[in-house]
Each structure stands twice: as C-alpha cells, then as structure tokens.
C-alpha cells in the first residue's frame, strides 16, 4: 500500500488573542492510497483547518502552519511555493466543500466550471474537454449530463450540486480527495446517495480520501480509518472498528455515547386529554407574478395536515427540507397564516384569529427556534429576553425578574447570566436561554423547530435531556420538528412523517420504526447514517456505564 500523505507534528497557529495559540497542535496521521480516513470532531476542534493546511488554503497571514510537515510524495506541502501548490491543487489533491451552493460560482454554468479545471491544468481541445466533462457528469450519475453542463448552480438541487462538485474534484483523477463535511448540508436520503457515490468513486479510482465530518454515523458508513480531534489535538486514531467498538480515549467514548441511537424510547401511556388538534391545515406559498403579470410559482407547503397532541406527549414531525414541517410549526404558533383548516388549542380555533384576538392565546403556545445565534436579540440582556414575555402579559417587573431567575436555574444556567448579553454564551447555553424564554409564559404547548440541529452532538444530547425534563416537570405537550430520525427516536412518543406538504404516516415511534407502512418512511429509515452501528442502545449504554 502506498502512503500518499504523511502529516507529522503539524501545528497551525492562530492569531494572537484567540482562544488558544494553536488551532491544530502536533497532529500526526497519514493517508494511504485507496482508503478513506475520517477526521471527526466537534466545531472548533481544528478538523477543517487541518484539511485546509493540506490544500495550502489557510487564511494567511493570521492563520498559518507554524511547525511540522505535510509530506505528499516526498514533498513537504507546508513549505511548497504558491505556484507549485497551484499545480498540485486540482490535479493531485482536490477538495469538495460543505455547501455546494457557495462553493460553485453562481454566474457560471457547471460545464464552464468543469472546463476550467481542464484548461488550467492540461492541454486539450475544447471538444475533448467537453467529452471528458460529459463522461464525468455521467460517472457521478447526474440524471441528464447534457442538461447539467448547461445548468447554473441554482438550477440544480443540493444533491446534484454536490455531485457536480465531486465531478469537478475528480476531473483530473487526483490522488487525494479532501472532503470537508460534504454531506452536512444535504438531506438524509441525499446524504446516503452522495456518501455511496464518494465511496464508489474512491474505489474505482483508488483515491485516498480525507473526509472531515462531525457525524459518527457517517464515519461508521464510510471510513476505513478514523482520527478523532478535540481542541486541536488528535486524541485517538485507528481503524473504524477499533475506534467505534473499543474507544480508548474518554472524549471519543463520550462522543460515541452522545450519538443518538435509532432505537426508539420506551413507550409511555398516552393521556386521553387532547391539548392541540390540527385539522386539514392548508398553506401554499406563491412567488413571482407581480403587478405586471409574469409566471406565478405555487408551492404547497402544507396539504390537509391533520394530527392531535395529547397532554404531556411529544409529537415529532420528521421530514426533509421542503417537506413543510417548519411551515406547519409556524402556522401552529401563528407566525404564518394558514389558508384553511383548524388549529384547535383547548377547543378554541386559533387559525382565524386576528392579531389582537390572538394575543391572549399567545402565552399558551410557545416556540423554541433552530438557530441559537439568530434567535436571541444580540443587543438585549438575557434577563430582558426572558422577562419581557411575562411583562407583556401583565406581570410586574419584580415577579417577572424572579420568574426569569427561576427559569435560568431550571434550564441549568446560573443567576449571573441574567445581566449578560447573548454573545457571551456558547451555542448550547444560548439554546437553554431560548428554552427559558419559551417557558417564561407557562405554555401548555411547546413547539420546537429543529432545536438541536445547529449544535454539536454532545451538546445536542444535553438539550434533548433538558427538553425531556421540563416536559415532565411542567406537564408540557411538545411538537418537535426535526430532520433527524435519530433525534426523533430519542424524544418523541409519536412521529408524523411529512413529504411535500403531506403527512404520509403518523404513529407511535416504536411501531413506526419497526413496521413503517409508507415507502417513504422506509426510505428515510434506511438512509440514516451508521444505522447498523448505532442501532443497539442497550449494549451502548452498558458500555458507557461500565
């Protein structure tokens, strides 16, 4: 087996005043021909900067390789000249990025962008280049390669864009492919397809793949070997089997333990008291048109959506992007207006209520948002963020403050947080503040829209646990929106699966997982990354507790 890349004692330095002196410290690992090495870590672990160091794409001069070697074919890339690096990039080592929409140039067609790769590196006639591009696009199994050549990035779906990126990266048959979270922005079924494609392409070309990810499910599916990074240090490395079965480092153990398993939670008895009933909800989005005519686009975001929610129950709404799950959530809390149907909260239909008539019902149904960095006003102190709900509802300032301090304790923050600004907190802590804000009005129903999808796995587990605790404590009913079936399995009593605005299947979590009735549910379940590895929670729990 040929060694392609040998990273020895790599130090990547951060600018002065950063949290730590080195983004990557003393990293040692290697990549062989025809293998996939996964570098796993949470945000801020230095995994992406490692990849960029190999490509010579560090944001210099602030961040640079301070020490160590990156040996590629007996050549040290850390000290290679910029012209030499330009030769290597694309032809010997190429890279695919997380978000293909921003990695592709939006004003150039896919064909032109693939063509560039050939033009910059090799001498070929334009006809030859075009044929190569076409064969590449059919290799990555884009449905209509001819059409794709002429398409602009926005005309393709996310998965197709990522396929085009892969085609471009593999255009000159590089020896090393660096993939920086290439499937994180994709839906789970698309992710499964793209992972399969990368694996196949790697096997067909004998490429060495350096695959950066935060998801152990993906690791289990694709990796030959794994390197785990924490705070810039490689804490553990070994074959996938070794690392996943017998992690030796406590950090790896905790990470693997935090991966939500696909095994559903034990069923609980369902209360007979129905708190929220949604009947035949309809919502369409229209765009285009305008005063001077033009073609109008109509998207059915919710079509005949019907479900009910019992007291103390958590209902998961699961679906891929564009399935209308967030729209349903927003219609329930009346951020969006549904066109038809009923939203019965304690027997009162909220849907037709105007703003003023809705106001007395607002406190009963509250929302937790997805992005903890966007959901808190950066200019307001935490105390005000939490207390302003009760104050608007008529509480006096003293009671509201007392309540806010209580809530901070409930969500696991200390009272000192009251006078601080959101930017002083980490993502997980901010999400706790978001939960406290939603609880401040003593709601009956909590609608959580992807509350953990912006968080690292270990933090995810904590927030899910917190949501579980407060639900039991306050006898809340919860509507939990997520794209991740693993997360849904952890918290939901029942799950509704949505596709293109329709609820295709709804049922208790256990039954839905064991015997999915709808084909789409089966598809979703089989696409969950690492489902074979992380399906047995009992073993895993035993491993952790010992």
């Amino acid at each position, binding site marked *: 087996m040929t060694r392609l890349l040998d990273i020895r004692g790599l130090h990547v330095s951060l600018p002065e005043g950063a949290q730590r002196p080195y983004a990557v410290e003393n990293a040692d690992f290697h990549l062989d021909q025809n293998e996939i090495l996964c570098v796993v870590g949470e945000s801020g672990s230095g995994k992406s900067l490692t990849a960029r160091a190999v490509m010579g794409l560090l944001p210099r001069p*602030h961040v640079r390789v301070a020490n160590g070697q990156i040996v590629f074919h007996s050549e040290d890339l850390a000290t290679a000249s910029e012209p030499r690096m330009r030769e290597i990039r694309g032809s010997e080592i190429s890279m695919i990025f997380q978000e293909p929409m921003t990695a592709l140039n939006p004003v150039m067609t896919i064909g032109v962008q693939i063509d560039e790769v050939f033009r910059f590196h090799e001498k070929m006639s334009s006809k030859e280049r075009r044929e190569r591009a076409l064969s590449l696009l059919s290799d990555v199994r884009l449905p209509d390669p001819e059409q794709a050549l002429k398409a602009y990035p926005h005309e393709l779906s996310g998965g197709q864009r990522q396929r085009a990126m892969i085609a471009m990266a593999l255009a000159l048959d590089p020896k090393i492919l660096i993939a920086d979270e290439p499937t994180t922005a994709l839906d789970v079924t698309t992710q499964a397809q793209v992972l399969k494609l990368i694996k196949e392409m790697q096997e067909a070309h004998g490429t060495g793949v350096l695959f950066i990810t935060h998801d152990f499910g993906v690791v289990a599916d694709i990796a030959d070997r794994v390197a785990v990074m924490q705070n810039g240090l490689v804490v553990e490395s070994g074959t996938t089997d070794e690392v996943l079965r017998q992690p030796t480092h406590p950090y790896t153990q905790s990470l693997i333990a935090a991966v939500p398993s696909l095994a559903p939670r034990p069923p609980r008895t369902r209360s007979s008291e129905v708190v929220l009933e949604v009947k035949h909800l309809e919502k369409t989005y229209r765009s285009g048109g305008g005063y001077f005519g033009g073609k109008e686009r109509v998207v059915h975001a919710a079509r005949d959506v019907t479900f009910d929610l019992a007291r103390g129950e958590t209902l998961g709404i699961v679906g891929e992007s564009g399935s209308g799950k967030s729209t349903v959530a927003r219609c329930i809390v009346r951020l969006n207006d549904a066109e038809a149907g009923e939203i019965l909260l304690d027997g009162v239909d909220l849907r037709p209520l105007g703003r003023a008539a809705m106001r007395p019902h607002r*406190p009963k149904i509250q929302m937790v948002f997805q992005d903890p960095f966007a959901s808190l006003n950066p200019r307001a102190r935490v105390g005000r963020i939490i207390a302003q709900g009760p104050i608007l*509802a008529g509480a006096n300032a003293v009671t509201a403050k007392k309540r806010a301090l209580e809530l901070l304790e409930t969500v696991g923050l200390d009272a000192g947080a009251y006078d601080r600004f959101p930017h002083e907190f980490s993502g997980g802590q901010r999400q706790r503040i978001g939960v406290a804000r939603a609880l401040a009005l003593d709601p009956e129903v909590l609608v959580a829209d992807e509350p953990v999808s912006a968080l690292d796995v270990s933090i995810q587990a904590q927030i899910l646990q917190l949501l579980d605790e407060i639900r039991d404590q306050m006898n809340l009913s919860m509507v939990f929106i997520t794209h991740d079936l693993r997360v849904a399995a952890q918290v939901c009593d029942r799950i509704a699966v949505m596709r293109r605005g329709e609820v295709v299947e709804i049922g208790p979590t256990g039954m839905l997982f064991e015997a999915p009735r709808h084909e789409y549910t089966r598809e979703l379940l089989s696409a969950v990354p690492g489902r074979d590895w992380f399906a047995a929670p009992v073993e895993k729990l035993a491993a952790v507790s010992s």
Partner: protein
Amino acid sequence: MHSFWKRFARNRQALFGLAILGCILIMAATAHLFFPTDPFSLAGQSMSPPGQNGFLLGSDSLGRDVAAGIAHGAKTSLLIGLVATLVAVLIGVIMGALAGYYGGIVDDLLMRTTEMFQTIPSFVFAILLVAIMKPSIESIVIAIAVVSWPAVARLVRGEFLSLRNREFVQACHTIGMSDVRIMLGEILPNCLSPIIVIGSLMVATAILIESGLAFLGLGDPNIMSWGFQVGAGRTLLRSAWWVCTFPGIAILLTVLAINLVGEGLNDALNPRLRERS
C-alpha cells in the same frame, strides 16, 4: 464602549479627523470670545492681505474680517449640518422602518415616494426649495433634510427587511409583542451602527450643500457662513485671493474631518470589515 474606542483609536486617519473636528468645534464655541463684534461689521481697511492692518487672514472688499467670518461661520456650518442631518435621519428612519417592516403595499407606497425624491438632483432641489421658502436658516435646514432623507430610508429599509425575519424578532411575535415595540425596541437597536455611520457622513454633505446655497446667495442674509464668504470673494479672486481661499480651506478641512471620522466609525462599528486592512 471601551473596546469600541480601542477599535476606533487603531485607525490613525479617524483620530486625525477627530482632532481636526475637535479644533473646529472649539473654534465655533469660542468665536464670540476672540471676535466679540459682529462678523458683518466693518473692522478696518478693506482688501487688507493676511497679516496686515491687524487682520490675521485679511479683510474683504468691505473691510470685514475674514478670520472673524470663519470663526462665526463654523457655528453656522456645524449647526446646520447637525440639525439638518438629525431631521433627515428621523424622517428616513421612520419611512424606512415602516417600509421594511410591513413590506407589501406599504413598502411599495413609501419606496415609490422615496424614489420620486431621488429622481430630482438633490442640489437643484435644495435651491428650488430655499427659493420658494425665502432664504432663512430654517428653510435651509428643511431643504437639506428634504433632499437627504431618501438615502437613510433606503438603508433602514434594507436593514429592517433582513432583520424582521430573524428568529429573535419572530420570538417577539410569539410572545405577543406589539409592532411598535418590536420596531423600536428590538430591530432598531440592531441597525444603529449603519445609521450612525451614514448620519456622520451626511453631516459633511449637509455642510457642503449649505455652503453651496450660501455661495449662490441663498443663505440666511443675517448669518455669517463660509459659503457666503466664498461667494462674496469670488469676484476678487485675482486681486484678493485670501477672501475665498481661507473659508474654502475651512470647508475642505471640516468635510474631510467628518468623512474620516465617519469612515473610522464604520470600521469600528462593523466588525466584519475590521480585519480588512
């Protein structure tokens, strides 16, 4: 606050601008101490070159002291610049906030109105307004404000448009907050930085417009201003260069200083641009 000042102070040009601006402010504030008499009064021999007959910067064709005019004119320029900008920012913020927040038909109405104002060249429009209203300090302030608010409205509209869909604003909707409170208490504080920056740069533009109006004889006849001085001296440019030159330099320095400070504010308030140098 402390870190803001540190970021601002890192920019040498901005500090330089701030120093000049400080000098001009002191000059305006102490004008009546150094030049207690009316700047319009005849102070001595006419057409004296700088440094002669007791005139520091010379005198004009009627024997008025140029230095006294500059000192008293500073007050006029700064006052008009500030007040006109405040009025323009106020109108612009209200229009932009309503348009950006409500969108739809409100947005269309307000923005088409704004565009109507933008289609007329601003200086010509200002001349027209002052000519209609009779030249006075109030009419000049109104004219400058009327021609400068559309830029603010556009900016604020853009900020409101992007902020109104942010999750923290939606969270305020879910707790039943009223629109006015959301606009004033939640969104506005988040777009203060660009407003401060555009406001500071608008002061400079306002001073230029005022000088231009005064140069054309449309200034308040009872108030000394730099533009008036330049206008009065323009026919003597070849025989008495100092009458035009010194007020001109005063305008140049003030506008330059304000622009430098505005740029500095921009760099200090927009953290994303901080690392660009």
